[in-house]
């Protein structure tokens, strides 16, 4: 079931109404049933995988708590990690590595005996696996006790608003919420509904509209020559993926908030970042903090020498790239961001000297503008790999951009193009007004007339400019 479907617009209020109609002690049952139903609308059989992950981690955490020795605790942690990552690897990467090995063997004229096989990727597996793993690691580290209520733990793993594309929650902050008694609060309901409406606007009016143009360019990369075409498509993809993913997060956070749950903020105006490091503190925050806490810090974090630290950062981004998908384009994308981060650290002092020499250090607004522009373009370079169908296409696109072919760009259907750009302008206007506040805070602080104008604009923007058959969210494929 997609968030941008009428089924969900019927499902959500029904679930919310039933949630508050039920006594607290039965609410976990409702959430468990509806969450599994939500997931099984996609493919029923794969709900077994969530249940297996849930059982493994529930048992592992209890085992850790009861283990009398550190070795025992480690054994349970190892069991959880190996099982969950093994399942993730099999379903997500087995085909990729198999085909990569086949290509490598064939390149050297060696025979490769493993036949071709295909495995359907369970939607959301990367997200719920990480969320469940963070629980067992936190229990191992002593950050929280094991959850004894199996039903509550199962809901924590499969909670439908954030099951398939995050935010990736932490047990420390999220699990206790299932034990809290939630009541209907007008402010929460209104906040939640506003976020859902805004998320639907971003998805249907901006992301899906812009994708029509982006797909026509990126899926036919060798039929276009103008540098401007590829630059336009890349800039628009930057907004497509931002709106697509942040829309999902907004709808997830809004849906959860209506029931009294607080999910973590996942995006914070990422294209206003002045450095790649800042970008990753504003983009997919739940994932970047997950990698920080469960990969970077165990590797030594910032407590090791600079060389080791930079190596660790590069490894984290490489893994992050691979997490995003089983394709070399994602690996290159991750590596590129790793290079950005490492280079940023190495050149920090040099950059400060450069700003001083250029007289920009004393002009903070100009400096901020340049830094934001440079960061945005570095991110866009990465998006080329993220979106391209393969690495060859990505290099072809980059080559075309660098050829500075200024022939007239391909616009496609002018009206479609303009609708997409209009949506982006609306988004940027709202984010400018937002400033440092969250979207919820900004909307809450608007006068009533402003809020109603916002609702009307979103609803009728969706009806007039929305693409209704744009399909699933980009991050569902991860």
């Amino acid at each position: 079931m997609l968030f941008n479907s009428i089924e969900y617009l019927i499902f959500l209020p029904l679930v919310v109404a039933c949630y508050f109609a039920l006594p607290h002690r039965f609410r976990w049952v409702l959430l468990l049933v509806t969450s599994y139903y939500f997931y099984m609308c996609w493919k029923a059989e794969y709900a077994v995988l969530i249940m297996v992950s849930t059982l493994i981690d529930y048992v592992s955490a209890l085992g850790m708590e009861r283990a009398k020795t550190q070795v025992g605790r480690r054994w349970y942690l190892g069991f959880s990690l190996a099982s969950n990552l093994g399942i993730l690897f099999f379903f997500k990467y087995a085909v990729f590595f198999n085909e990569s090995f086949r290509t490598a063997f064939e390149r050297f004229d060696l025979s490769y005996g493993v036949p071709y096989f295909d495995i359907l990727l369970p939607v959301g597996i990367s997200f719920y696996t990480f969320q469940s793993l963070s629980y067992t690691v936190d229990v191992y580290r002593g950050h929280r006790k094991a959850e004894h209520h199996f039903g509550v733990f199962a809901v924590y793993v499969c909670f439908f608003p954030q099951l398939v594309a995050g935010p990736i929650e932490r047990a420390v902050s999220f699990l206790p919420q299932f034990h809290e008694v939630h009541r209907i609060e007008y402010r929460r309901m209104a906040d939640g509904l506003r976020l859902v409406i805004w998320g639907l606007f971003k998805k249907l009016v901006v992301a899906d509209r812009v994708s029509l143009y982006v797909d026509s360019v990126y899926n036919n990369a060798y039929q276009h020559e103008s540098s401007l075409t590829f630059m336009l498509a890349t800039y628009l993809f930057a907004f497509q993926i931002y709106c697509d993913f942040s829309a999902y997060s907004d709808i997830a956070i809004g849906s959860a908030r209506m029931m009294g749950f607080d999910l973590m903020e996942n995006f914070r105006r990422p294209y206003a970042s002045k450095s790649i490091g800042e970008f990753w503190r504003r983009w997919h925050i739940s994932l970047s903090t997950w990698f920080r806490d469960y990969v970077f810090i165990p590797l030594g974090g910032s407590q090791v020498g600079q060389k080791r630290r930079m190596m660790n950062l590069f490894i984290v981004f490489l893994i992050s790239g691979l997490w995003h998908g089983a394709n070399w384009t994602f690996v290159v994308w991750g590596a590129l961001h790793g290079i950005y981060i490492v280079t940023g650290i190495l050149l920090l002092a040099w950059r400060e000297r450069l700003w001083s020499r250029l007289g920009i250090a004393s002009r903070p607004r100009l400096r901020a503008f340049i830094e934001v522009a440079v960061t945005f373009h570095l991110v866009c370079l990465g998006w080329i790999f993220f979106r391209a169908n393969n690495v060859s296409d990505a290099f072809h696109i980059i080559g075309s951009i660098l050829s500075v072919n200024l022939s007239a760009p391909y616009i496609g259907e002018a009206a479609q193009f303009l609708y997409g750009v209009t949506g982006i302008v609306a988004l940027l206007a709202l984010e400018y007004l937002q400033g440092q506040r969250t979207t919820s805070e900004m909307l809450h602080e608007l006068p009533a007339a402003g809020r109603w104008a916002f609702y009307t604009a979103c609803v009728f923007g969706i009806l007039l400019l929305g693409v209704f058959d744009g399909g699933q969210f980009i991050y569902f494929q991860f």
Partner: protein
Amino acid sequence: MADSSSIFSSEHKRLLAKVALFAAVMLSVDFVLGAALAKAHRRVEGTGFGGGVSHAVAQRNDLLVFGSSRAMSHYNPKILSGKTGLGAASVGIEGTNILSHYCLEQLILARYSPRVIVLDLIGTDLEETSRDFDSLSIYLPYYRDGNEALNEVLFQRSKWEPLKLQSKVYPYNSTLLGLAKYNSDVLRGKTDESNGFHPYAGIEMDPAAVLLPARTYAPAERERLFPVASYKPGYVKSFVESARNKGVTVLACKGPYRFVEGSGKVDTRPYLDAYAEVLGELNVPIITIDETSHPEFNDSSLFRDDLHLNAKGADVFSTLFAEALAQHL
């Protein structure tokens, strides 16, 4: 902590009141905005221009050419009229397929009956694509005409389409710019003399590129490599029968292509063989004016791209077609 189980708490009442207010405001805006958009749409309809559907439903010509961008750009109405003595117009709409042609035909036949309908054949008409029903959004404004045949097709866009169409604004999805432009044209007194004919200018392909010869496949292999969408032959049949039931003569035309090696484009000509089989069962005569029957279409200067003639090519094609058509009338 005790649960709040009363449905009459102030928070509940406040929430329900706001939801009701929200619904009332949205319904009111939908009504008013929908009425304004409908008025803007009606202003364009009937003027004879306005692109696509609006132009087509204003038609009263005796000869209409249906199809996609090829119908729109290949058939010069002036040449067709000159040779046949019939008032002619193209009602081709770019990027459409047989589902759209059928919907358009239903709208037109509800208004009048031309003497002759020509269906320009293009392979992609029968190909199954994920956006087959999406492209029918251009007919949504006509949902309230009460045309059952049209609405039956529109409802296949999605199972929620009947619900969505309760909104008076939704039918105008993705039409704002077009409505604005054409309303502006109408208000400024502009007229459209094109009769639906919009030829393409210039050449966008390498004239020295090597031609890809048309391949013939055994039926089973053709079906495997070029599968026809299961529901589309039914629409071809409905298209033909609807016209014949109103006394309209139906003909088809197979025009020229210029697929070349290395273009990366898929040669969809094998679909035309499947099309010919479907039309053969319906006894629809097919006029062939293409590169196999007329060697003049081996001249690359007549083509804009692999699928479309340019203006010069369109005039050559129209002359040949009109002569052939006249013999069928």
